[in-house]
Every structure is written in C-alpha cells, then in structure tokens.
C-alpha cells in the first residue's frame, strides 16, 4: 500500500510541468515527518548526453543524507553516485599545493611596489615553507604583505558539499530526471491555541502545523505534505515521552492516511525558505467542552515541610462526540484565559503526543496558587522484620472563594515485588493500580480538609 501511494506522487510529479529555478531545483515536493526528517523529491529537466556523463546537483538540502539518494531518468543507468564534502578553504588549497609551484607577490609597505617570484611549496605544517630559487623561506615570516596566487584549484575541493551522479545514457536529450533523498533539518509539529472559558466549561481550539527548515536550502514553490508520525530512523523507533492521554481513543479521523500515519497536505504549493518557521492552520473548533480539575501526586510516602501547590489540569476529549473531533498530531497546547478586562492571557502550556480521535486528555497547565497539599509521615512503625506501617496525613487547603475537589494521588506503592495495602483511611480511596491510589477530596471554599491513611508495606 505504501509503495502504491508513493507511485501516486511519482505519477503526479512527472506529469506536472517543470518550473525553471535559478537554484537548480525543479519541481519539488517535500514530505515532512515529525522527527526532523523529510523526503524531498525533485524533478529536474536535465540535458543528458549519450554515453557516460557526470551530472551534479546544486540546490539540494545542506543536510542531505547522501546514502538515501535515488536518481531516476529515462534511458539512463547509474554508474556511481558521489557525495563530495572536501571543502575548498585557504588551508586546504595550501595543503594541496605542497610540491606545486605558486606565484608570490611581495608588496613594499613603504612604496607599494610589487615584486613577483615563483615559489615551490615545500610544506604547510604550522607555517608555510617555500623554496624560492635556492633559498628556503617561511611565508610571511617578516609579516610583510605577501600575496599568494595559485594556478589552479584541485577539482575535488568543493565550494559546498556536492552531490554528483555518473550516468550512462543510451541517448542524448533533455528529459525529466527525478532525484529523491531524505534530509534532516526539516520537521514539523503541531501548535494549538486553546482559549478556555472556565465559567462556561468550554474552550475554542485552533490547531496549526508548524514546520521548520534549517537545512540551509530554500525549497521553492514546493508541494508539501506533512505526515503525522515518526517513522523509525536507522532502525531506531521514535517513541515519544509524555503524551498526556488519559484514555486512548478508538475513533478514526476523517483524514487521509498513509499506512498508520495521518496526512496533512498543504492546500497550495508553498516556498519553504531556509531558516523559516511556517505555520498553516489545520483545526478550528469552537465551544468544545473542557473542565478544570486539581490533582496532587505524592511520589512516595514522604513528608513535605511546606505545603505544595496542586496541579491545575485541563480535561477535554478529542472525540467527535463532545470533543475536538479529530486526531491530534503531537505538539504543544498553549492555554489562554480572558482576564478581567477581557484580554486573553496565557495560563500555561503542555505537550501532547499523537492522539487518536476519541481520546480523553488531561493537560497540566500549571500549579494552583490557592490550592495546596501538605503530606506528612506522622509515624513509621515496624511490625516485624518484613512489615512496616506508615501513617500519612494530607492537609489540603483552598484559598479560593469556591469549593474545589482535589484528586489526591499517592504513588510509589509498589515496593519491589511486594504490594502495599491500606489498613485504614479517613475516606474511601480508589486503587488506580498496584502502585497508585487516589482520593477525591472535596475542600470547602476558603477552607481545609484532612485525609489520613495507614499503609502496610512488606519487603
């Protein structure tokens, strides 16, 4: 299926007329993946003579992965592909001139008079040693102005890394030739703007794809396709970190897909300039339900000397039913809220992974100023050699003028291979997993609440 899809691109590209570019590029299409990887396909009109010839390709990405280059033109065969990266510099020029003869021009600093001599470069180690007639001198040892003129530049020294292909063609003539390669330096992610209305329990979300080009090359008038996925590179998969998905969805978004990846084509051809960051809208949803919750996670059974802020978590869904109604490519969600004057202000951001449609998300946008939790180990008691009892007290405070409910989470309950059980607790908890327990604690307006629990740990 994937092969077929790529054939699709090929067909379309070949049938399109090539557009003359001074950069040397032809009709360019770029497929950009998330993990700083792009597939560039460039159809150029090349005049290929019959027989053996060398074609070089200016205007390719400065971060081309030369080993991935593919070349295709009618009635031609490839003899070899070269990627030359021995760059021309004054030092290289001098090193390659060892044993050669150069012209030196000495300038008299007082009069400006010039004196020309031919000199043989003997060595260029730390300084340039010259033989002039029967004398041996070090170049500019007297610090006086001296020009060095080289007769030629070695042909393998390049101005820039250069890709060249040696071809064998059965006929001469101009024909479309397709060059394709992978390059680093181009990638994309999503950026979401979420305007949250706390009172209404709703938010407006705009999604933008943000693509960046740091390849050193501008791709002009390129057909651009974004693939929401991170294919393995060099056999290494790219599994992301935190994705903030609370429950993964099972709905399929109404978008084109390629294999397991969703596709986000740009509507029009566009120029992706070097050092450019480009954003194009792909999602605009108004009035999606969203609500704010408070969470505090205690990593292990420990004491904090000062009360700690609970996290403010924004919960919403990507479902078509009561949510954003789309699969969400990985990126950053920036959350805004209107201040008293009605101006949107930033209240925090978080990242999401590639999120299937129908997922439930919980984004920590920040830490609440007014809702705090102070966990304290009030007692640790040894019952016998393998059994301990830990008494925890959690003091919750709420300085807000409205009652809140805090999800108080105690993690770290897995102890090597042994479990931890709750012997007693002041309110009913829910065991989320063997490692984690949660209390949903109501805290009154401008008030406080206390939860106590006794854990029995074996090890």
């Amino acid at each position, binding site marked *: *299926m994937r092969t*077929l899809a790529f054939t*699709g691109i090929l067909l*379309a*590209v070949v049938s*399109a007329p090539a557009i003359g570019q001074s950069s040397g590029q032809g009709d360019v299409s770029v497929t950009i993946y998330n993990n700083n990887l792009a597939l560039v396909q460039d159809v150029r009109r090349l005049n290929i003579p019959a027989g053996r010839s060398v074609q070089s390709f200016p205007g390719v990405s400065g971060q081309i992965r030369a080993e991935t280059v593919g070349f295709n033109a009618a009635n031609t065969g490839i003899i070899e592909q070269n990627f030359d990266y021995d760059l021309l*510099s*004054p*030092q290289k020029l*001098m090193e390659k001139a060892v044993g050669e003869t150069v*012209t030196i021009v000495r300038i008299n600093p007082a*009069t*400006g008079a010039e004196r020309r001599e031919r000199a043989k470069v003997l060595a*260029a180690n*730390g*300084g340039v040693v010259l033989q002039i007639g029967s004398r041996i001198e070090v*170049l500019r040892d007297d*610090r006086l102005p001296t020009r060095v*003129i*080289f*007769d*030629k*530049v070695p042909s393998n020294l390049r101005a820039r*890394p250069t890709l060249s292909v040696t071809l064998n063609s059965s006929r001469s003539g101009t024909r479309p030739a397709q060059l394709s390669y992978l390059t680093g330096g181009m990638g994309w992610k999503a*950026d979401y703007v979420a305007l949250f209305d706390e009172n209404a329990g709703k938010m407006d979300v705009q999604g*933008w794809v943000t693509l*960046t080009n*740091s390849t050193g090359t501008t791709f002009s008038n390129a*057909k651009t396709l974004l693939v929401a996925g991170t294919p393995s590179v060099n056999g290494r998969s790219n599994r992301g970190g935190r994705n903030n998905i609370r429950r993964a969805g099972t709905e399929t978004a109404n978008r084109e*897909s390629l294999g397991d990846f969703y*596709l986000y084509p740009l*509507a*029009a*051809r566009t120029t992706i*300039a070097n*050092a450019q*960051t480009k*954003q*194009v*809208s792909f999602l605009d949803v108004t009035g999606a339900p969203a609500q704010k919750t408070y969470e505090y996670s205690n990593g292990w059974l420990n004491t904090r000397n000062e*009360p700690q802020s609970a996290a403010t978590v924004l919960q919403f869904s990507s479902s078509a039913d009561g949510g954003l109604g789309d699969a969400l490519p990985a990126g*950053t969600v*920036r959350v805004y809220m209107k*201040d*008293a004057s009605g*101006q*949107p202000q*930033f209240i925090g*951001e*978080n990242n999401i992974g590639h999120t299937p449609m129908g997922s439930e998300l919980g984004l920590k*946008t*920040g*830490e609440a*100023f007014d*809702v*705090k939790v102070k966990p304290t180990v009030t*007692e640790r008691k*040894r019952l016998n050699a393998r059994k301990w009892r830990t008494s925890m007290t959690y003091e919750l*405070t709420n300085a807000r003028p409205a009652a809140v409910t805090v999800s108080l989470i105690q993690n770290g309950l897995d102890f090597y291979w042994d479990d931890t059980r709750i012997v007693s607790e002041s309110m009913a908890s829910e065991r989320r997993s063997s490692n984690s327990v949660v209390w949903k604690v109501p805290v009154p307006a*401008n008030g406080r609440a206390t939860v106590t629990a006794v854990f029995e740990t074996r090890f």
Partner: protein
Amino acid sequence: MMIRTLLAFLIIALAGTAQAQSDFARQVVTSEGPSSVSVTVYRDPYRDPDEEMELAYLEGYALITEQRTVTLPAGEVDLRFEGVAGGIIPQSAIVTGLAEGVLEKNRDAALLSPSALLNGHLGRAVTIRRTKAATGAMEEFNANIRTDASGGMVMQTAEGFEALQCTGLNETLVYPKVPQGLSAKPTLSVRTIVNQPTRATVTLSYLANGFDWQANYVADVSEDGGTMNLFSWVTLANSDETSFRDAQTNAVAGQPNKEEGDINPVSGGSISLKCWPQGTTSDIDLKRFNRARDEARFLGRAMPAPMMAMDSEADNLLIVTASKVTTEQEELGDLKLYRIPVPVTVASKSQKQVAMFEKQAVPFEQFYETEIWATGAGNSGTFFTTLRFQNDKKNRLGLALPAGKMVAFKESGSTRLLLGEGNLDDKAIGEQVEVQIGTNQQLRFEIEQLGQGEGDDRKYRDFELTISNATKLAAPIELKLGHGERERLTKISSRLGRKDGKPFWKTTVPANGASTLRYRVRFR
C-alpha cells in the same frame, strides 16, 4: 482504500500545480510598529525564590499583545510585522482581525550578515578592493567567490586563485547587491487574502523569552519587635532589545507550565577568516581547530557563536516609579494577575519596580530554628533567625503573596539596621509564612552522648542537648529532632510536640543562659 489514497495524492498534486501561479502576484504590506501594546510578564519557571534575577540573561517570558493598524489592498497580501520582540517564540504567534483569516504564518530568519552576503554570492562575480597603505590609492578588480564562508575565502581572479585577507594587505569584498530573501531582523509575516481594500486593526499576540519578574518585600520591624510594616514591590525586567512604550503592563504569579523545545533564536552566521598555517616562530595549533570546525560544518551544525557581549552596565538603568501607583491584583484561573493601572514603558535592558501593597503594623514573631539529628553526638551548630506571620485579615494581611525576596530592617534610634534577607514561595491567603532571614551566631546547640546500654533486649543511647544563649534577650527556640526509622525517643526530659512528622522541641532559652534536653534513643 488503496485506490482512494492514490486518488487523493493525484488530487493534491494537481491542485498544487494549478495554484502555483498565485505565488507571484503577491503584495507586501509592512506594519512598522504597534499602536498600542500590552505586556504580561511571567516568571522564570526554573528559578527558585532564593535565586537572583540575572538581568543580562532573563529566563522568564512575556505575553505581548499588540494592536496594529494596517491598510490592506485587495488580493493576496503578505503582511509583515516589524518591531516585535527579538525573543519571540514564533510558533506562539496569534493574528486576529483579518477578515479572511490567515493562509499561513511565516517567521523568516535568514538574516543579512557578512556571511550571508558571502554565501549569497558564492560562484558569482564580486569586486575586490585593495587600498595601498603607503599611498592610500585604491585598486579594484573583479573576482569570483569560490567557496562559502565556513572555511575562509578563496577567490578566482584573472591571475589565478587567491585567499582573501591572508596577504596582510588592506582588502575587502564589494558586492553588487543584497541577495534576495535576507532581512535585517527575523520577520514575522502572515499571508492572507483581502477581498476589499480596507483599513484594519490587527491584533498580534505572542510569547517572547527574555523577561522575568519577582516580588520584593521590605519589612520594617518596629522598635518593640512585635510588628512590622510590610511593603512590597513588583520588580520586572526586560532583557530584550525591544522597548515597549506606554504598555499596559501586568505580571502573573503562580506556576504556569512551560515546555522546552522553543525554536532556537537565530543568528546571521559567522565568517571564519581562517588562512593557511601562518606559524612563524611558534607553532599555533590551528589545524585541530579547523578540522573540528569542518566536521561541525559538514554535519550541518553551526559552530557555537561567540558569546554576545552583554550591554554595558550603564544600560541597566533602575527605574523606580512613583510609589503612589500600586498594582491591582485580579484572579486569572488559578494564577494571580498583577496589573499596573497606568501605561508604563517596559524599556529594553531595564528593570522596573512598581509598588504592590503596603501593610502597617503586621504582627509577627521572630524565633530561632534548626533541625538536628538526635543521635549526632558531638555535633554543634547555630540557629536560623526566622520571621513568622499569618497571611490573614486578622493579622492585617490576607492577600496573595507571590514568591520573592524579603529584606528586613529595624529602626534603631535614627539609623536603619539590616536584620537580614530571605525569601518566600507563593503564599495563598490563610497560609502561615516563615522567612529565614539569617543566622544567629550567639545561639548554639551541642549534643553529648551520656551513656549507652541494653535493656528489654534493645540497645539504647542517652543524650543531652544543650542550647546556650549569649544574648541579652530570651530566645524562643524551635527545634526538630530527626531520627532513624528504627529509632525511638524515650525518657525525654521535656514535653515534645510534633512538626512535619518529627519530634519538635519548642522552648525559650533565657538571656545569657542555657536550656537542656535529655533523651534516650532506643533502637528497635
């Protein structure tokens, strides 16, 4: 499904070709600056309250909201925004107020610089100008640039190949024009379609790095030491090169989550003027450096740019605004927003302070605290001086206290003495605030082991803790006694409380006197 995908590709491809032409009929409209601007400053999320703001390198950020009025012709328009903050996080930009919406947003960062000029003329003709040192006579001739800016300049002239500026002559490149697509500063632009020529007010908002703020508290302790006047500042700073004139300025307290992964700031690249080895009497290890540079170049990574020289100290003007203006606090979700009620200028490379509040005669207590290890025989040490007050109405406070530093003074006769300096975290209404402002060297503790033995099959050790006070005032002491999980304190000579899950001794050590605590630590 397979056919559908194939079809989809064909459709995209064809649609693309059809619209390719539109690229050329574009008009550029430039907005040079905002007509009004608002700046909301957020703290560096990774700076603790005890760390200073580093004015040269601020790691907080700001939300900047600008109103810009533009005249738009009909057709496809590139609307460029100039005068945005240099620290802009381009992907956070939001543009509203365009009737037909935004086709795409671009941030172009190909900057005009010596290296961009050189790279832009690679393989093209330029003029070389040499000036004779002796006579000042100038000589110009044509040359062709043969290599890019990364490893030195090699040019081709009528005479052969030469390296520029390896000769010791006064020579320079003269370019015919600026290559296309280079700009003086990174430029943010949007592409939009305009149906009717119009004058529009566009709102541009974006996050920008290079700002920070904190609260600063000044506590003036009364003569009797029972109350203090608490004055606080909002101290905000801008290390960006852009000034925001007459800006509605706010600061946000609390801890909004902020992710890494901003798009890197840009530089114009640099020219490396390396020549061939030029050692004369001593060897300079140029070669290794060059190789490292060439490798970095090949991997597509720029060499680390030389550190930007920070602007001189004189630029860091401290502007203290009239203290009659105080910020107004409002709720922003779970954060606190402090609004400066009048427009102020948030100047480039400067710090600004505006009063947050002033509270008179706030009752507080001063005490001395430490935490020691109960079995630490032979240990001795001093105590922290701590101020404690309740953040509620009853105690003349009762307002959100954002994190920051506190400096405490005491009036003594006609002079003002510095008691010490400390810091506090974000404190909500109703919370107790404790600020450690220093160390009292006149108060010391010492632990001695008095004996050890075994009873009830358990080992034990007896200790004596002595606190000595060399001052003329009785010293209230609060001391936490840490101990191992398998240890228990028994036979304690005074009643102990518990704090933070630990045994806690609260006592007052008499002036020029001492207090002792004896206890037994039993090992279970």
